[in-house]
């Protein structure tokens, strides 16, 4: 019987794992809470989840451990990152305290709670011997889980389907926009609109490229020296040229 399945007492290897990954998980969790950038928070959380995944495997739960890494870290957290990227530049957090002293109170409360509960659990569980999953996992971890999941927990298991359907409907309602009939354009419509009077059919001119700036946020100059709004993307803030940039530079021959 390998250590993966026995796991009643704690071997030296597991102790090492715990004392390395445990503090790492706590540090990563703290990192998630204090990171200013939401993307960094998400990555810290991924680290916590990976540590927990290892703990599950070490504690005789290879299936749940791998599900943690593949499903939780791989799918759910990636969904978070995806939304963060969509939400984009607003992702960083303000550090202005709206309720005065709320942060301090929350941290004090948390420290108190953690100290109290942690110490209490420690005392409550210190004397308790772990039975270990050797017997429960005798037929294999996945088989053992299946045997309970499809008997004792079968009803709850079926009900989760309702949860998933509700989630699918929710995502559809809140994210899917049905195109209205008069919003659907055919190719001839698009062509007519393109060559209609008042519309410029050619490609738009590129942004201004100067010796001092190659930013796409710098508008190009029209022949008469005015700036053209059409040369930059409308979502970009227009970059004003400084005095030095807009005045023509002297050439050597003058």
């Amino acid at each position, binding site marked *: *019987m*390998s250590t*993966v*399945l026995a796991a009643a007492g704690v071997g030296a290897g597991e102790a090492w794992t715990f004392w390395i990954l445990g503090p790492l998980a706590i540090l990563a969790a703290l990192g998630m809470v204090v990171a200013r950038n939401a993307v960094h928070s998400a990555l810290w959380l991924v680290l916590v989840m990976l540590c927990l995944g290892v703990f599950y495997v070490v504690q*005789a739960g*290879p299936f749940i451990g791998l599900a943690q890494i593949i499903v939780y870290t791989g799918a759910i957290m990636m969904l978070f990152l995806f939304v963060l990227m969509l939400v984009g530049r607003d992702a960083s957090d303000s550090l202005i305290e709206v309720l005065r002293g709320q942060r301090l109170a929350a941290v004090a409360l948390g420290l108190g709670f953690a100290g109290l*509960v942690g110490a*209490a*659990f420690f*005392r*409550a*569980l210190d004397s*308790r011997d772990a039975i270990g999953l050797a017997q429960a*996992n005798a*037929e*294999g*971890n*996945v*088989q*053992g889980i*299946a*045997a309970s999941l*499809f*008997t*004792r*927990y*079968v*009803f*709850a298991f079926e*009900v*989760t389907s*309702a*949860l998933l*359907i*509700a*989630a699918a*409907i*929710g995502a*559809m*309602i*809140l*994210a*899917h*926009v*049905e195109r*209205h009939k008069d919003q659907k354009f055919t190719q001839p419509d698009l062509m007519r609109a393109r060559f209609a009077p008042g519309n410029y059919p050619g490609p738009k001119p590129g942004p201004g490229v100067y010796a001092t700036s190659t930013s796409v946020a710098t508008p190009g100059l029209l022949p008469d020296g005015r700036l053209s709004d059409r040369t930059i993307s409308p979502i970009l803030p227009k970059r004003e040229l400084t005095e030095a940039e807009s005045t023509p530079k002297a050439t050597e021959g003058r």
Partner: protein
Amino acid sequence: MNGFTIATPAQVLAIDVRLPDLDYAAMAPMLVLFGAACLGVLVDAFAPRQSRHTIQFALSFIALTVALLAVIREARVGSRELTADVALAIDGPTLFLQGTLAVLGIVALLLVGERALEKGGPFVSQAAIPVGSEADRRQAREEGATEVFPLTLFALSGMMLFVAANDLLTMFVALEVFSLPLYLLCALARRRRLVSQEAALKYFLLGAFASAFFIFGMALLYGFAGTVSFGGIHDAALLATTSPLLLFTGLAMVAVGLLFKIAAVPFHVWTPDVYQGAPTSVTAFMAACTKVAAFGGLLRVLYVAFDRARWDIEPVIGTIAILTMLVGAILAVTQTDIKRLLAYSSIANAGYLLVGALAFSKEGLSSAMFYLAAYGFTVIAAFAVITLVRDDDGEATHLSRWAGLGREAPLVAGVFTFLMLAFAGIPLTSGFTSKFAVFGAALGVGEAWPVALVIVGVVTSMILAFPYLRVVVMMWLSEPAEQSPTVAIPGAFTSAALMVGVLATLLLGVFPSPVLDLADRAAEFIR
């Protein structure tokens, strides 16, 4: 042998996997609603747009009626059993509360399906379109989304499962099954959609926060008892071979999750915002049905699993009950928006219900169940009236707009006056009989805590009567404001819902004994 080897067929056969006994008749109410909800999703996908609303409404109505009949059938058979191993308990309280949920669900469905008050109904057509955009203005008069019907059915089936759940895991799944659709429904208002989305966000974040507590509590109780079935926790508490610390911490955290749903102080902060921001028909649904389901679950947890820990939890939950009544009543006085006023009143009512629950007696249980039914009808009717008082921007919920409503529309103002008097607990209304039953049950125990709770309950009832009466005085005695809102002529659905709500409020006040007897006979949990 290595843990990762793939089992040979012989090994698989060595495990005895047999489906537990599933009593389909007893599970029928939930299964019917689940099935109808799934069917509703398909209707939305395939039925032509014009006929969707009719089909969906009819489907939901029929499903709820069938579910009600299934509950009644089961009650007549008199089943008292644990089914699906021990995951579900079909007993008196389950059937009473499931029946209540079905009836209140039908009444709330009438409000959800109403389309006479506003073109297209109270729900937005496409919630995905950003608020205030060109496309949003274009969809202002389009037919509302019909996905609300399957979502409502999912929520109701989750609620029915919640009151029947006999272990913490099933209860947790049921909690989420009824919460997720509610989060969504909150975000779908046609008017003031920003506020509605904000309500959904607040409800969602705080709800998820509370579920996290529930999960951790569940883990601790599993650590304590080695099982999460209520009977198992009860037995483990009886033997107490392991440290009771896990038991109490676990109970506290599970209680946080449940008290959040019933909106007890200090877990009530979401209630006013969500009640105000959500579409009024959804608010009515939440105020009536969520309260029934959440209290059903809390009663089962307290009476079945933690019966032995009663003396230890009484002071804590008693304090919460006192705070709930006080905060609900006092803050209700300061409100200027009718929906927020009803939200604080619903918080105070959660306190009165806790008084009944803390009696820890058969009378306490039956009176709390009666209170839930009576309060549900009154609150749905009250929100139905709110949907009627409108101006150009939709519902006029600010209290000042309600001034002089009695002259404008005496009938509607009369109905609302009656409902307010019922909330205030005036005799001959269900508000009086239910409060009387709850306080009576608590006094019947004759111990210090219940008596103290009753005293606070009576005092806060008097405080709470003030905001109700202020609304009444305002409607009848104040001069109407310059641009007073109009009272819309209710459509058939709203009229029916109003009628049922008002009649139930009156009948349960004048002849409460049949329902009281029913609740009394049902008031016994099995373990």
